[in-house]
């Protein structure tokens, strides 16, 4: 277990009061894409080139600022200064207190913003080729730029409120982009499902946020000792008990984690992410693989001091245990489903869900650096895989069923090579691929987790399955013989160039996170990174290397045995289906989670809506109708009294009663003149009473 405070003790804290120039201008990073988005929105439809140029240009500029900020953090770090610079400002004043927003530059935000800008920029460029023939090209870039701005806002936020606001905006752009082809009812439905499922998590997040606010009086993370993630506030929350034996810190942490679970597709809120593949493929790569879905992981990393509040070395907290178990379960669960999917993007979607589970588990057991390292490497290789899949889909004339592809390694050599790099990274092939190093770190911390071996075995099994389903997919798509229609063709350079760049990073990024030179971990933890080649010779690490090798060999080997070069017909049952038909059916149908929600949550929603409507029409409304009838009856009685057998002396009084009664009896006929008369009468009466009483 890593505990940040101890490690940073040797470092001088950065000067918080006066933020450096680059920190003062950090807001430009999200602002530039947002402004670009606004400009594009107000442009006329056919002007494609300026739209794309604006979006790409603005994000490029953001990348430059982000790199400058990153360089600043790194240079201070090499001088043994732990950088955490904040700029805070008052957003509104409530009572005597202020609601403050702000942004923060520290190793965590610096690393994340560079990743988001860089991967985002490559995907923007790729989109120029991918969306070339779409009639709504400009709107696509408008939404993409808005997304990038909002996502970068999440990254730099130094206030849970600002983070939440950008978080919801990110959700909005995700909604808009999943439903980009809105004329397809399935896309519109998927967009709605995504928004609502994540909003389930978000209402817990909102509760956690208002609770945190009420407890600590601030939503700033860091504010020279007065922030909510700083020891003073954390101590207060630890001392406050709440329900179920949790401290307030634990309960708030869990509520916030519910929001993170929604956004990051963790069990049981994962159902929206596979459906989100209805969006254009660059969207899947950018939002639903590399960046937005990782925002949940980032959020947990950001509030890690809260999640781990009160931890002792070698221990854990209630919140972190939940994060661990949810993450590990998700990792295994989604990997199982991915085995039996046939849509190229859906396989990757479940794979993403599974990998996000790894990140969460890494955060839960190994700390911020372990989870974040996998987040960064995954962003590169999963974006690569999605864009490769997009290239394949493009080349196969919008075909997405892997059974109707095959042999593409000769028709699309560049796509194949880059895709293979991504696939090997995802499988965790040792030494040469980044995925190995980052996944290894997670397995290592799982192995050392003293509370249970459950997560470790789940993650190992998940890793075997990952290697298996990726091998199955690659065999179907790139090996065997061509089973599709027409001729497959390689994609243009504007699409393959980003693939090549990402493939490079899918391999090279591992270099910054090896046990011998754990640069990334040291950077995030703000301690010195030392090169120590002996780490490779440690028995513990060698054991893990051996385990990983076995995982990869078993996974890839069994996958190749079943699917390699077989080129089965699309109608033929799957190799696994023949072996285990009932298991296959369950996995193919996604373990019936959607169906379960259909008969529970969705049914409850519809049923309760009808109850509310029924209550309105018949109970509350019924009371009104009954009262109206009572008045009518009363009026009738009065009328009868009036007409029959009443002597003339009583007539005048009765007239008034009848007028009053008849008035109300006309509830349905609406003779308002009489009401006005009554109103006038009332005013006169009021005046009379007033005179009378004041005299008296």
């Amino acid at each position, binding site marked *: 277990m890593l505990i940040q405070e101890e490690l940073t003790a040797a470092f001088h804290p950065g000067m918080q009061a006066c933020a450096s120039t680059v920190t003062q201008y950090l807001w430009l990073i999200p602002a530039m894409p947002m402004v670009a988005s606004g400009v594009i929105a107000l442009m006329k439809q056919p002007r494609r080139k300026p739209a794309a140029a604006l979006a790409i240009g603005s994000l490029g500029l953001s990348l430059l600022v982000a790199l400058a900020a990153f360089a600043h953090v790194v240079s201070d770090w090499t001088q043994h200064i732990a950088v955490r610079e904040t700029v805070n400002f008052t957003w509104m004043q409530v*009572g005597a207190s202020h609601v403050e927003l702000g942004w923060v530059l520290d190793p965590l935000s610096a690393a994340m913003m560079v990743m988001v800008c860089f991967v985002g920029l490559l995907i923007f460029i790729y989109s120029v080729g991918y969306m070339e023939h779409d009639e709504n090209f400009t709107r696509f870039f408008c939404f993409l730029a808005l997304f990038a701005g909002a996502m970068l806002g999440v990254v730099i936020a130094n206030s849970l409120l600002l983070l939440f606001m950008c978080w919801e905006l990110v959700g*909005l752009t995700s909604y808009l982009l999943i439903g980009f082809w809105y004329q397809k009812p399935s896309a519109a439905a998927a967009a709605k499902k995504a928004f609502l499922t994540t909003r389930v998590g978000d209402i817990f997040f909102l*509760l956690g946020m208002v609770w945190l606010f009420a407890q600590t009086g601030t939503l700033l993370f860091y504010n020279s000792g007065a922030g909510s993630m700083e020891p003073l506030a954390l101590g207060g929350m630890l001392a406050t008990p709440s329900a179920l034996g949790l401290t307030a810190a634990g309960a708030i942490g869990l509520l916030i984690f519910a929001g993170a679970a929604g956004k990051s597709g963790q069990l049981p809120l994962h159902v929206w992410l596979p459906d989100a593949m209805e969006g254009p493929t660059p969207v899947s790569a950018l939002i639903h693989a590399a960046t937005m879905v990782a925002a949940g992981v980032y959020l947990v990393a950001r509030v890690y001091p809260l999640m781990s509040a009160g931890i002792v070395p070698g221990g854990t907290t209630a919140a972190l245990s939940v994060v661990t178990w949810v993450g590990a379960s998700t990792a295994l669960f989604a990997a199982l489903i991915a085995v039996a999917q046939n849509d190229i993007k859906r396989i990757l979607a479940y794979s993403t869900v599974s990998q996000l589970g790894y990140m969460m588990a890494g955060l839960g057991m190994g700390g911020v650096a372990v989870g974040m390292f996998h987040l960064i490497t995954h962003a590169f290789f999963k974006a690569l895989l999605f864009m490769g899949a997009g290239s394949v889909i493009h080349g196969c004339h919008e075909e997405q069923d892997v059974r109707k592809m095959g042999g593409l390694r000769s028709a699309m050599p560049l796509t194949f090579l880059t895709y293979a790099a991504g696939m090997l990274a995802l499988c965790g092939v040792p030494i040469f691929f980044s995925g190995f190093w980052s996944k290894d770190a997670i397995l290592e911390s799982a192995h050392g987790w003293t509370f249970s071996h459950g997560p470790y075995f789940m993650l190992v099994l998940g890793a075997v399955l990952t290697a298996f389903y990726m091998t199955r997919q690659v065999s179907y798509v790139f090996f065997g013989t061509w089973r599709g229609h027409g001729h497959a063709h390689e994609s243009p350079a504007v699409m393959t160039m980003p693939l090549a760049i990402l493939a490079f990073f899918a391999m090279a990024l591992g270099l910054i996170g090896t046990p011998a030179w754990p640069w990334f971990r040291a950077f995030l933890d703000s301690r010195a990174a030392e090169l120590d080649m002996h780490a490779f010779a440690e028995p513990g690490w060698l054991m893990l290397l051996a385990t990983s090798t076995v995982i990869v060999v078993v996974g890839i080997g069994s996958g190749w045995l079943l699917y390699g070069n077989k080129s089965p017909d699309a109608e033929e049952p799957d190799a696994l289906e023949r072996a285990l038909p009932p298991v296959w059916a369950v996995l193919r149908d996604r373990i019936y989670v959607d169906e379960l929600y259909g008969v529970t949550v969705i049914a409850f929603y519809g049923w309760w809506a009808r109850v509310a409507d029924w*209550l*309105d029409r018949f109970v509350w409304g019924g009371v009104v109708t009954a009262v109206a009838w009572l008045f009518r009856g009363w009026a009738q009685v009065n009328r009868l009294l009036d007409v029959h057998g009443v002597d003339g002396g009583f007539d005048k009084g009765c007239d008034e009663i009848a007028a009053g009664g008849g008035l109300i009896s006309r*509830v349905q006929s609406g003779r308002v003149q009489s009401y006005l008369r009554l109103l006038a009468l*009332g005013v006169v009466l009021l005046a009379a009473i007033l005179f009378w009483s004041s005299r008296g």
Partner: protein
Amino acid sequence: MNGLPVLTLLTVLPMVGAAIALFAGRHARGVALLTTLIGLAISLVVWTHLPADGSMGLVERMPWAPSLGIEYHLGVDGLGALMLVLSALVTLMSVDAAHHVHRQPGLYFALVLLLEAGLFGSFTALNFFHWFLFWELSLIPAFFLIKLWGGAKRGPAATQFFVYTMAGSVALLLSFLAVFLSTGTMDFEQLANMAAAGTLEQAVVAHLGPVMLWLAMGVLAGFAVKVPLAPFHTWLPATYAEAPSPVTMLLTGAMSKMGVYGLLRIAVPLFGRQIAQMRTPLLTLAVITVVMGAWAAAAQKDLKRVFAYSSVNHLGYCLLGIFALAVPAAGVAAQTSQAAALNGVILQMFNHGVTAGALFWFIAMMQERSGGERGIDHFGGLRKPAPVLAGMMGIALFSSLGLPGLNGFVGEFLIFRGVFPLSWQAAAVSILGLLVTAAVILTVIQKVFTGPVPEKWASFPDMHGGERLAMAPVIGIMLLLGLLPQLVLEHVNPTVVNLLAHWRF
């Protein structure tokens, strides 16, 4: 402001406008537009001339019938002034939206202006006598607007609206008469001070016996109907649906705020202790209003009814915030929570007014283009032929959903921020309303704007230049207040602090 009776002038202005519009024939809309524009300008001037400490500004006092405790007493604080701006804005939007009144336009716009006068009057009056006159005055034009220009079932709807609100008013009037008989004054400030000192209850008990709780119920009933609070809301869906859409804008955008305003200006200051006694049932009803309002909206097939119920839900948050104030709590943290809740309530009043007004305006546009169609299932794929309408209405819809960055979020956030520490149970249950509202609104978008375009809507006309120009400032307000809520809070917060300092629960 140099002794100029600005508030009186503001209230008289629409009355004069109404008189002119009545005889202006087909120029009536122009007259109404001009009048409401001037009204908006004056209300903004009022807004900028408020005292910084949140107390009553622009006060006008004149003896009227002193022996009766009747005094002509006007004044506005941040709350009143914000409601003036809202009323002026919503009336302007409504007049703008009503460019298809062919039958008796003179009378129509005269009534609209009269309604505006009623709103201005009741948001500035500080004496029960003329406050009540304006409160009732606004009801009459509303009734005739529904009755004469409404939809197919306008008759019963108008009557239900009138009778229901009238019943509430009678209860309110009776309660206030009792207060007057006991204290001899009808001045809000005086009564509030008495209530804070505890002498109000003493006086009432001395004169009439232990009836304070009944009086509180009577006053609450009047406002509960107007806001509305479940189960006194059944008049609302039919009324909102059958009123012509521009009139619905007025009903939901401005008139529903009279109820919340009344709670804050009269009910809570005078009957704080009684409300505190009844806080559990009241909070429960508020939670029911929020949750069932949202869920009932989910069952509706008529766009106007959907948003009618959605309005019930949104104003339910205001009630939630107000009743949570009555939960006993002490200390600086509790004061901050109360201030947050009350700021949120007042922001929510304004934001809901603007957003709901805009939504019914959009519905008016859709009805114009489709021959009066407003069934949620009758549309589909409209984003294709009408992208600008879809985009602008989309922004208004997301504002209603409470998306951060737009106005709706800020009020709801502050209300939950305030209510959660005061009554976490109420907050935890009513937060479901946010989820259900999101489902309702996304379903509307899905059914109306996405999917394939049906044959008959293939050439559905998009918003034309004039409409875009008219709607753009409204959308601008949604964005502006979503990003810079301090623009409103700078005057609201001092008022909130001031009010809370005087209230006793």
